[in-house]
């Protein structure tokens, strides 16, 4: 598949995993418009974890913003039996399965068909730098790029292999950036649907913009009505562990994948 090039931009918003958190999505879109962005782009994993997955998809489709396929969309579109999240621990997989089964059941057939049409990558230019947008990594939809396990030489290899200056990704749920030179590196935009395992209920997205001839990255905190999301999750019968994360900001499940340092920062 040829990668679509969206063109050149001054300032864009990038939304990581939304995980059915349509309330934080609406808030992030509102913040983005107030910041005068000339594009918003969603990097995949629209469903999972949260309630009423179609609400998120309908907001995205109605807005017409460019979207990338995450492992969730890939799984839903191909009627896979699980989310291909990349976990290995059985208890993590059990929680992932609850989340996936709920989302699969609650996602309209027409939306699943739309998910099949989404590209795995998008390209665009800011400040003359070639940005490559993907879900996990440019080479694998469910590869985890964490801050403490994505070293500079490896980043340079990815950039060189994929003819890019800057790779923008999500999938891990934690935002970070590492630059190997001016406008060269990786930006993980974190997750818009789930807090960053830091004891605070807010979520995050990223604004990338041209500043002094270079690409500047702002991670933007999003305060939203998380109590309402928690209520809806409870009434949908989603696991109490998921609700606790939304309410407290601490991750409670699927922790086995975290590298040593990221794990040490959380409560569980």
């Amino acid at each position, binding site marked *: 598949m040829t990668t679509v090039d969206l063109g050149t931009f001054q300032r864009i918003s990038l939304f990581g995993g939304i995980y059915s958190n349509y309330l934080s999505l609406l808030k992030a879109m509102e913040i983005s418009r107030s910041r005068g962005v000339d594009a918003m782009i969603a990097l995949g994993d629209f469903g999972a974890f949260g309630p009423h997955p179609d609400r998120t998809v309908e907001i995205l489709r109605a807005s017409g913003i460019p979207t990338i396929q995450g492992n969730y969309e890939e799984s839903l579109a191909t009627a896979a039996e699980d989310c291909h999240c990349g976990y290995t621990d*059985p208890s993590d997989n059990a929680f992932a399965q609850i989340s996936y089964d709920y989302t699969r059941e609650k996602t309209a057939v027409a939306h699943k068909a739309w998910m099949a049409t989404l590209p795995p990558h998008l390209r665009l230019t800011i400040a003359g730098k070639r940005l490559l947008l993907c879900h996990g990594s440019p*080479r694998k939809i469910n590869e985890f790029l964490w801050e403490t*396990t*994505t070293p500079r*030489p*490896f980043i340079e290899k*990815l950039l060189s292999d994929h003819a890019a200056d800057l790779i923008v990704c999500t999938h891990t749920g934690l935002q970070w950036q590492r630059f190997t030179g001016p406008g060269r590196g990786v930006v993980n935009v974190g997750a818009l649907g789930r807090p960053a395992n830091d004891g605070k209920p807010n979520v995050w997205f990223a604004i990338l913009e041209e500043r002094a001839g270079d690409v500047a990255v702002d991670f933007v905190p999003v305060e939203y009505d998380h109590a309402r999301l928690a209520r809806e999750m409870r009434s949908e019968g989603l696991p109490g562990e998921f609700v606790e994360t939304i309410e407290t900001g601490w991750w409670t499940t699927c922790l086995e994948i975290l590298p*040593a*340092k990221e794990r*040490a920062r959380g409560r569980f």
Partner: protein
Amino acid sequence: MNAQSCASSGFPIAPLFALDTLWFQVAGTLCNLQCMHCFISCSTTNHAHEMLTLADVKRHLREAEALGVKEYYFTGGEPFMNHEIFEILEETLCQGPVSVLTNGVLIRADTAARLKRLSDASEYSLDIRISIDGWNAATNDPIRGAGTFERILGGVRALASAGLNPVITVTEACEGAATQDGRTRFFDFLRSIGLPQPRLKIMPLLRIGAEEQRLRAYESWETLKGRELTPEEAGVLQCTGCRMVTSKGVYVCPILIDSPDAKMGETLKDTMRPFQLSHQACFTCHETGFSCRT
């Protein structure tokens, strides 16, 4: 990127997609313990592979940097028997994340504090992985040696006190470890010894080395001869993304260092090519999707 099907020999061929994981047999086959299930039969007197020096590691790190390696693993034998281990870890942590596989018995408070300082000084993760083969001395000691259970726990506690959270590795030599009940029991046990965020890795047995004598060797049918390798299967095999440096050269993976034909060259560049899955241990990796990575 396509995995290849059977070569003329009848064994599938595993491509190397990218050299992501570089292993160092930093302590050779020299170990202060002599575990009954060790697939490379390490002991105090096994000099099949010698210790690596800081200079050896630096030479390969330079090559690894150019190849874009993603992560580094150090194993043995017992890595903390290597007198240059701290310098080696410090050098490597400048370049990427590091995992050290140890039996833990040489880790005391001062060792743990030094490791914590190395970890804090790096932007990358330092993971210490400790092997234990049971929930108590009665299950662990027959495999890892008399008195080792308490000595291993001493190392675990020293790390926990220093603020490091080791990954605990258990092999299936510990009966029931791989079941959901076994895992739960291990998680509870690890919490009880001072690891509030327990991290656990269960490993299958590799029926080579000392393990051949303990339980059994591979049966003749346990082979990949005549099998096809799908791209999905290839993507799971660790040898499609790793290589192992020992004092004798560079091998395909951490498991096959006692097989002369698994040595692929002297430099990493020599080994950037496919490997034929003709070894019986390849059967275990293929069947279980197992990787020595954490």
